[in-house]
């Protein structure tokens, strides 16, 4: 096996996101990292905007009104999809950290991708038709 030339280094950190010539696990890693960043961003945004609850009924109810726009529903759908993937992949990473199911990592990863896709379709339909 030749060593891939696209290994990340602190100076070329963006090569974290280059899957060429690497294993399926790189995709798991890329998706885990992107969803981690997205969910962290959402978490702090969520905490900040819920500050409207402290201001009072008018502020919060007007804010919720704003969220009915398709742009926000789409954003929330992305959060749900990222949450499903990050949670399922996290279970895989947690298990393998304890030496469990290591030979089946590939199958587990493909299985959790399928579950994420099914979940995305389900929530996509329910959130946009609600």
């Amino acid at each position, binding site marked *: 096996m030749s060593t891939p030339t696209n290994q*990340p280094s*602190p100076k070329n*950190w963006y090569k*974290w996101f280059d899957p060429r010539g690497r*294993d*399926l*696990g790189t995709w*798991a890693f890329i998706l885990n*990292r992107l969803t*981690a*960043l997205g*969910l*962290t961003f959402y*978490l*702090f945004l969520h*905490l900040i905007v*819920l*500050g409207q*609850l*402290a201001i*009072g*009924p008018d502020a*919060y*109810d007007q804010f*919720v009104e704003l969220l009915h726009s398709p742009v926000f529903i789409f954003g929330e759908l992305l959060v749900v999809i990222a*949450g499903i993937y990050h*949670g399922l992949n*996290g*279970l895989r*990473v*947690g298990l*393998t*950290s304890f*030496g469990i199911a*290591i*030979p089946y*990592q*590939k199958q587990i*990863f493909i299985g959790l991708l399928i579950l994420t896709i099914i979940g995305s379709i389900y929530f996509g339909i329910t959130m946009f038709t609600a």
Partner: protein
Amino acid sequence: MIATKSVPKSGEGMWLWLIKIVSGALIILLLGLHFFVNHTGLVSITENGLLTHEGVVQYYANPIVPTIEILFLIFVISHSLIGLRSILLDLKPSRAALNVINWVFTLVGVVAIAYGIWLVFKILSFLPA
């Protein structure tokens, strides 16, 4: 995917790693609960769910709810900051830079958790006496 053992990340001690793993598992449980209670009719709260200020306040009237929300807040903030720190570790920060990261993240975590707890009590203050 090569079948090998997982390798500890340099700069992330056993305890931080363990907190990340355990909080991750607990988040799956609590997020499931948070999500189904907040967004489905499985638990009847108020007519409008949590989409009105009044609905949220009534939901918080049950003492289990603020308790779970505060625990959830602590787990999720810890998990996200330890995770973000582990991403930064891949950039091989110098000892001094890592010190700054540790202090800033600890401060952000403490402020975020304090703010969240304040918010929970602020919501409870809207309950009719």
